[in-house]
C-alpha cells in the first residue's frame, strides 16, 4: 500500500481532476450519446468505460481507477426497474452499499464515488451529473486529495 501512496502523490492537481465513469451500455451510455447529439457542453474531465450493465461493475475496478490516479469515480446505470437486464442494477445497488463499506475500509474517500441513474433520454441529467461531480471533486479539500487516506 505504501508505494501506491507514493505514486498517487505525483498525480495531477485539483483543478484538472481525472474522473472515470463506469456506465451501462443501454441507458447511461445512450444518455451520454444524447447529450452529444444535442451538443450540450460539459466538463471534459470524464472518461467513460462502457460495460454491459451496472451489475458488471466490480468494486475492484474502482480501486484500480483510484490507484491509477483518478480523483473521482462515477457509476451509472439504468433506473431501478428499467434495467435492460431485469435486475442487474438492483444487484449493483445492493452491492454498492456493501462496497461503499469496502472502499471506506480501503481508505477511499467516499465523497469521490458517485452512483446515479441516467436513462437514454436523460442527456441533460448526464451533463448535470458530470458538471456537479466535477465541481465537487474540485472543491474537495487538499486533505482528502490523498485518495487512500492514512
Amino acid at each position, binding site marked *: 500500500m505504501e508505494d501506491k501512496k507514493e505514486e498517487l502523490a505525483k498525480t495531477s492537481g485539483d483543478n484538472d481532476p481525472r474522473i472515470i465513469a463506469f456506465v451501462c451500455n443501454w441507458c447511461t451510455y445512450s444518455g451520454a450519446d444524447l*447529450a*452529444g447529439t444535442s451538443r450540450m*457542453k460539459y466538463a471534459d474531465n470524464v472518461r467513460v*468505460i462502457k*460495460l454491459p450493465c451496472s451489475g458488471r461493475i*466490480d468494486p475492484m475496478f474502482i480501486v*484500480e481507477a483510484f490507484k491509477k490516479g483518478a480523483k473521482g469515480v462515477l457509476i451509472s446505470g439504468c433506473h431501478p*426497474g428499467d434495467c435492460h*437486464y431485469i435486475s*442487474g442494477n438492483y444487484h449493483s445497488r445492493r452491492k454498492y452499499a456493501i462496497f461503499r463499506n469496502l472502499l471506506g475500509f480501503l481508505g477511499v474517500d467516499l465523497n469521490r464515488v458517485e452512483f446515479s441513474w441516467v436513462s437514454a433520454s436523460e442527456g441533460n441529467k448526464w451533463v448535470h451529473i458530470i458538471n456537479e461531480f466535477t465541481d465537487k471533486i474540485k472543491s474537495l479539500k487538499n486533505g482528502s486529495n490523498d485518495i487512500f487516506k492514512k
Partner: protein
Amino acid sequence: MSRIGVFVCWCGSNIAGTVDVEKVRDEASKIPGVVSAVDYKYMCSDPGQNSLRNVIKEKNLTGVVLAACSPHMHENTFRKAAIKEGLNPYFVEIANIREQVSWVHDDKERATSKAVDLMTMMVEKVKRDRSIDDVKVPLHKKTLVIGGGISGIQAALDIANGGVEVLLVEKEPSIGGRMIQLDETFPTLDCSSCIMTPKMVEVNQHPNIKLYTYSEVTDVSGYIGNFKIKIKKKARSVVEKDCTGCGNCWNVCPMHKNVKSEFNVNLSERTAIYVPFPQAVPLIPALDRAVCLHFKKGGKCVKCYEACGPKCIDFNLQDEIVEETVGAIVAATGYDLIENSLYGEYGYGKYKDVVSGLQFERLLSASGPTEGLVKRPSDGATPKTIVFIQCVGSRDPEKGVPYCSKVCCMYTAKHAKLFAHKVHGSQSYVFYIDIRATSKGYEEFVRGTMEQDGAIYLRGRVSRIYEDEGKLIIKGADTLSGNQVEIAADMVVLATGVIPKKGSDKVAQMLGISYDKYGFYTESHPKLRPTESSTAGIFLAGMAQGPRDIPESVVSGSAAASKILGLFSKDEYEVEGTIASVNEATCVACFYCRRVCAYNAISGKDIKDRSGKLIKVVANVNPGLCVGCGACVNACFSKTIDVKGFMDDQIYAEIRSLSV
C-alpha cells in the same frame, strides 16, 4: 503479437472541427502494437469502409479501432466490413470521439487529449479481444401451452394455425377457463359461451393441437429450443377414446348432493363422475375419486360402469406421465378470486345473499343454476334491489391486495346493466371509490349503465352489512354528498378482486421464470418486452401476468403466439456471443454466480474422467439463456466466470491506459 489498425474519422468537421485528428492519428501510431494509423474524412462512407478493408487485408490486422462516432451508430457497419476480410467482428472496437468529445467540448487542445485517451483505451482493449462466435441453438418446433383459458386457447390456435404443433395442458376436465363461466361480456355484451364454445371446439379438432385435459405439467428442464417436459395425465377413470359423452354415467351417479360444483362457484351440486358444464371440451367426464362411493366405500357402487354402453369406465386407471420435448412454452394459468371470507363485516358465507361477482355471473347465465333467471340463493326470490360493492379485496393493503383488479369496475357496470335488463323495475346501487373504465368504449359503457339503465352510483365504501327481516342492510357512505347511506337490499354482489391462480408460484418455480410477490408472472420488460418471461423461450399470456380483461388476454395470447412463430421461423436460435463463460479449471462450485443470475442461465455440470468417474462439479453457462449482463462475474470470488467482450483483463487494461 497484436497488429492493430487505428482509423481516425473526421466526420467532416463534426469531429475534425474540435479534435486535432492528425494528432490523434500520430499518438496512435506511437502505441506498441499499432501497425497502421490513418485518418479519413468519412469512415462510414463506402470509400471509408473500403480503405478499412484494404488495410485489414494489407497489414494483416488482428484488431481494429475506429475513433469515430458512437458505437450505437456504426459499430455494426464496421464489424460487417471486418467480416468480409475474414476478421472476427468482435475484434472491432469504437472509440467514441464524437458524442463524447467533439460535440460536448469546446477547447480543442483538451478535447484532442481526451480523444487520444479514448482511442488508447480501445487499443488496449482490442489487444485483449478474443474471437467470439455467436451461439446457435437448435429449435425443437413444438410448443407447450399451460392453461386452457381464453388466453391459452388464443395462443394455441394462433400457433397451430401458423403450422406449429401445440400441446395444450389444462388441469381441469375441460378447457374454457373463467371466460366460459361468464354470462355476457363487456363491453359489447356478447354471450360468452357463444363466442367461446366455437374456439374450444376448434382447439379440440385442430390437427396441430394435442389437448391434455385433467393434466398437469410436473417437470420442465432444458432451455429455449429444447425444453424437456413431463405431463401428468391424472387418472380420469374414463377411457377417453371410447367415451361418447352420452351422459348415462353422470345421470345415474347417486353422489349428487353435497359435492359443490366448481363451475357454478358452489351455487349448485355436481355428481362424482361429471363434466363441469354441458358444453365441456372434450365432452368426456372425469371421475372424482375423492367423493366417489366406489373409492370411498370399497367398490360398493358401480352404477356408472353399469350404465356406460361402451364400458369405458375403468376404476383401475392410473396417473400417466407423458414426456415431450418442446422449443417454447406459454404460461397462461389465469386467476382466482380473493377470498371473500376475509370480510367479516360483509357477512360473506354467513348471509347467503351476499355473493361474489363470479357467482353473480352464474346466476345471470342461461347455463347457470337458475337458468338465467336472477334469483337469490337464500329463498329463490327475484331480487328487486341489489347493492354492488366494488374494490372488495383490491386496493386494500390491510386485508387484501394493494393493486387494482382492473376488471371489476367493468363487470360491476355489466352486472348492474344485465340486472336492469332482466328484472324490470329493479334498482341497483353501486358503491365505488373510483371508476376505472379505460379501454375503447368502456367509459361509454359505464355511463350507459347509469344513464340508460338507471343504476345509482355512490362514491364510497361500505362498512357493514346486516341482515334484518329478510333484507340486507348495507351501511355505506357517499363521500360526495358527505353522508352515511343505509340501503335495504335483497342481494349484495361483491366485486371481488383477482389474484393469480393458486399454485402459479409453483408453476413459475418449475419453469424458472420470475414472479412478483403476489404470484403474477413478471415480464422481461414491462413496456418493451411484455410477452417475454425472464427466461428465453418462455412466454406469458392472460391474467397469469396481472389483472386484465378478455380483449387484453386475447391480445397477449396472440402476442405470445407471434413471438413463438417468429422464433420458429428460423431453424436455429441465434444469440450474440457476448455471454458468460466459465473456466472449469478454477471453478470451485460455490454457485454464488447462480444466485445472482436473473436468467437462470447457470447450472451445475459434472466433470468426469475417462473412466466416467465424477471428478468435480463446475458451473456451466447455458448459452440459450445467458444474456451477458455480467452480474455473475462480480459474484465469483475465484475469478472463474467472465463475460466475453467485457473480460476483466480488458477493463483493467482500459483503466490502466488512463493512468495519469
